[in-house]
C-alpha cells in the first residue's frame, strides 16, 4: 500500500504539470479565492473586534450589575447598594481584572450658549481608569482625581457644540431621588476624544461622590462594571458574580447589555462560514471541470493502468490526489498572499471618507484587519474537505472505466 501511495502521488504530481496552462489558470483561481476568503474575513473580524473592544472600553466592562429596573428606566430611582460581603470577595478574585461603580443618569448640560441632553456618569477615577478608556483619552486639561472631584470631563464634540472651553463653568441638571430637579454648576477640567462620535457628544464624567451628593442618594450606585480577562469568554465570570450578587439585582454579560454587538459577533461567525463556502462552490465548478478534462484526455492511459493491474482504488486515489495537490498549492500561495496583504495593513486601513457611515454601523473609521488562526484553518479545512468530495465523482467515474474500451478509445 505504501508503495502504491508513492506511485499514486508521483503520477498525480506529474500529471498536474502536463497541461501547465490549465493548472496555472486553476491555481490562480484557487489562489484568488483563498486570498479573498482570508482577507475579507480578516477585515470583517477586525471591524467587529474593534467595535466590541471600543464599546466595552467605552463603558460596559464584561459584566455589569444593575437594579432590575435600571436598564428599562435608567434613572436615579433605580439604584443599588455598592458591593459588599460575598460579592466583594468575588470581585477580589484574580479572574477579575478590575471593577468600578458608577452613578449613571440622564441629565441636561447648559453652557452660556446652548443646552444639550447628555448621560452624566459619576465615577471612581482610579478604578474607572482600569476599565474604560476615558482616562487615557483626555487630550486637554486633566482627568478626574478622586471620587469627590468637583470638576467635569466632557467630550471634544460636546465642548464645541456648547461653545465653551476648559476652565469655564456649565450647569448640570438632573432629577434627584425625590423627583425634584437638582442642578449644580461644574467647572470643565478636562476634554476627552473618542473614536465614536456619539460617545464624545453624549457622555460627561464627574466624581461619583459629587453626583451622589447632588442627587441625594448617599452611597448608592447605578451600576457595577466588572472587567474579566477575555471578552470572548465571560460566562464563568458572569456566573460567579451573579451567584454572589444575589437575586435582587440584575447581572448581565456584555452581549446581553448590547444585543446589537452580541448578535453582530454571532452573525459574523456565521457569515465567515457562508462566505468561505460560497466562494468554494464558485470555485468547485472550475475544479471539477479541470478534473473532468484531465481525465478525458487520459482515458487511454487510465485504461492502460487498469489493464496492467492497477486497482480502480488506486486510479481513484490518483485523481483525488491530483485535485488535493492542486488545492494545496493554491491554498499555500493564497494563505501567503493573504498574510502578506494583511500584515502591512496591521497599522489600520483608513476609511475615514465614510467615517460617518462606519459610525452608523457602530464602527470606527480605521479598520484593523485581524487574522485569526482559527479562520485561516477553517478556510483551508473547508476548501480541502469540500475539494475532496467534489473530486470524488469524476475520480469515481474514471476508476470505473472498462479497461478494454478505454484503451482502444481514440
Amino acid at each position, binding site marked *: 500500500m505504501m508503495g502504491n501511495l508513492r506511485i499514486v502521488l508521483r503520477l498525480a504530481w506529474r500529471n498536474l504539470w502536463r497541461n501547465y496552462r490549465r493548472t496555472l*489558470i486553476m491555481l490562480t*483561481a484557487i489562489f484568488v479565492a483563498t486570498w479573498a476568503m482570508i482577507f475579507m474575513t480578516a477585515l470583517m473580524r477586525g471591524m467587529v473586534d474593534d467595535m466590541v473592544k471600543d464599546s466595552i472600553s467605552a463603558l460596559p466592562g464584561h459584566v455589569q450589575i444593575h437594579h432590575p429596573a435600571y436598564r428599562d428606566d435608567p434613572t436615579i430611582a433605580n439604584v443599588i447598594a455598592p458591593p459588599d460581603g460575598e460579592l466583594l470577595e468575588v470581585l477580589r478574585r484574580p479572574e477579575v481584572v478590575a471593577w468600578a461603580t458608577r452613578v449613571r443618569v440622564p441629565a441636561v448640560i447648559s453652557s452660556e450658549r446652548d*443646552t444639550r441632553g447628555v448621560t452624566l456618569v459619576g465615577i471612581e477615577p482610579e478604578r474607572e481608569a482600569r476599565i474604560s478608556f476615558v482616562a487615557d483619552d483626555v487630550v486637554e486639561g486633566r482627568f478626574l482625581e478622586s471620587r469627590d472631584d468637583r470638576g467635569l470631563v466632557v467630550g471634544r464634540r460636546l465642548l464645541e457644540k456648547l461653545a465653551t472651553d476648559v476652565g469655564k463653568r456649565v450647569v448640570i441638571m*438632573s432629577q434627584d431621588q425625590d423627583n425634584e430637579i437638582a442642578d449644580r454648576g461644574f467647572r470643565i477640567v478636562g476634554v476627552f476624544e473618542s473614536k465614536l462620535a456619539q460617545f464624545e457628544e453624549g457622555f460627561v464624567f464627574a466624581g461619583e461622590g459629587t453626583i451622589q451628593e447632588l442627587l441625594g442618594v448617599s452611597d448608592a450606585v447605578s451600576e457595577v462594571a466588572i472587567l474579566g480577562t477575555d471578552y470572548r469568554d465571560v460566562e464563568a465570570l458572569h456566573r460567579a458574580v451573579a451567584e454572589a450578587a444575589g437575586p435582587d439585582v440584575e447581572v448581565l454579560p456584555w452581549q446581553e447589555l448590547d444585543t*446589537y454587538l452580541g*448578535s453582530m459577533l*454571532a452573525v459574523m461567525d456565521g457569515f465567515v462560514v457562508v462566505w468561505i463556502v460560497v*466562494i468554494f462552490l464558485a470555485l468547485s465548478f472550475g475544479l471539477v471541470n479541470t478534473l473532468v478534462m484531465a481525465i478525458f484526455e487520459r482515458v487511454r492511459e487510465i485504461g492502460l493502468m487498469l489493464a496492467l493491474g492497477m486497482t480502480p482504488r488506486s486510479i481513484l486515489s490518483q485523481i483525488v490526489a491530483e485535485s488535493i495537490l492542486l488545492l494545496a498549492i493554491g491554498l499555500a500561495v493564497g494563505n501567503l498572499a493573504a498574510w502578506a496583504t494583511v500584515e502591512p495593513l496591521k497599522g489600520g486601513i483608513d*476609511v475615514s471618507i465614510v467615517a460617518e457611515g462606519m*459610525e452608523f454601523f457602530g464602527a470606527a473609521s480605521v479598520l484593523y484587519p485581524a487574522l485569526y488562526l482559527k479562520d485561516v484553518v477553517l478556510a483551508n479545512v473547508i476548501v480541502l474537505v469540500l475539494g475532496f468530495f467534489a473530486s470524488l465523482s469524476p475520480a469515481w467515474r474514471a476508476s470505473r472505466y472498462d479497461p478494454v474500451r478505454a484503451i482502444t478509445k481514440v
Partner: protein
Amino acid sequence: MSITFRLAWRNLWRRKRRTWLTVGAMVFSNVILVFMISVQFGMYEMMIDNTLRAQTSHLQVQAPGYKDDHKIRQVVPDVSLLAAELRQGLATEDVAARASAFALVSSADRSFGLQITGVEPQFEDRVSSLPGLITEGRFLSDSMAEEIVIGRVLARNLRVGVGDELTFIGSGRDGSFAAAVVTVVGIFESGMQELDRGFAEVPLGFFQMIFAMENAGHAIAIMAPGLIQVSSTRSRAEALLPDGQELMVHDWDVLLPGLKQAIQADFVSAWFMYGILIVLVAFSVLNTQLMSVLERTKEFGIVMSLGVTPGRLGRLVMLETTLMGCVGMFLGMVLGGALVLWLNQHGFSYPGMDEMAGKFNLPSRIYPDLSAVGLLMGPTIVLISSIAASLYPAIRLQWMQPVKAMRAA
C-alpha cells in the same frame, strides 16, 4: 440562422459535461448575485426610505450652519409663509415647516432632556411617517393646541400615557425662559430606537409662541416624488427661495451623511465579494475556452488551410462563449428571479437580524422585490466578464500556423 452561429452552438455541446460545468459556475454566481443585489438594494431603499420618512425627508431648507450646530438662533424667517410659497411653486403638498429646540421634559415622576420639534399638524403627515405611526391616541390637531406626541419608550420612561400632562422647560430664541404645560395626545412607535426614545412633537404655532420664535422656524422639509427626483426638486426649490436671505436647500445625504456613507461602505464591501465571484467565473470560462481551443488545434489548422482567417476563428470562439454566457445568464436569471419572488412572498431572515435591523431602521424580516436592476446587473456583468475572459484564447488563435497546427496530435 447563420452557419457560424450554428457551428458555434454545436461546438458548445461537443463536450457536454464541460459546457454544463462552466454554465453551472455562471448560474451559481448569477443566482447568488441576483439574490444578493435584490436584497441589498431592497435594504438600502428601505433604510433610506424609512429613515428619511421618519426624520429628515428628502430635502430641507435651512439657515446656513444649522445642520451642524442646531442652534436655536439659526432660523428660517416666516417659515410657514415660505412653506406655503414652496407648496405653490413646486405644485405639491409635500412640504412642511418645522422648528426645534432642546428642552427638559418632566412628568410627575421623571425628567429627560430632549429635542422638541414644532410641526405643522396639517402638513407633517405629507413629509413624515411619524403621524401615521401613532399607536395610541391621535396626532396633533391644531397649530396652537397645547399638545404633544412622544415615542413609546419615552412615554414608558416618563411613566405617562395619553391624557397625562408634561411640562417642558428650555430657553427661547432670545435667551428667555421658555416653559409650558402640554397634554400627551398620542404615542408613536417607529421601531427606531433613536426616535422612540428621544423624540417629541408639538404644534408649530404653539412652539413658536413658547420659544419666542415669532414667525421663524428652523427647517422646511420637502418630499420629492422619489429618490431620483431629489436633485431636480432641489434646484426648483432653490429658485423659489426669497432673495436677500441666506437660506440653503440640503439633500438628505448632506443632512444624514452617516446613512449614505453606511450604504457606500456596505456597497463597496459587497462589490468586493461579488467581484471575487465574477473573477472565479471568468477563470472557469478562460480555462474551458482555452482547453477547447487547444483541443481543436488540428481541426483549426485544417480549417485555416482551407482559407478561413484566424480572425474568423477567433470570433467563432467568442461567439461560443457568448452563447454559453447567454445560457448561463438566462438560467441564472430564471432561478435567481424565482428565488427572489419566492422570498418576496415568504420573507427572509437570519439569526441575529432582529437586533441589527432596529439599528438600521429595517424590519426584522426582509421581503426583497424583484427589480430590473437586481435581475440584470449581476448576470450582465458575469456575461461581459466571461466574454472578456475568452479574449485570450481567441487572440492566441491569431498566431496559429496552419501546417504546424495540422501536425498537432
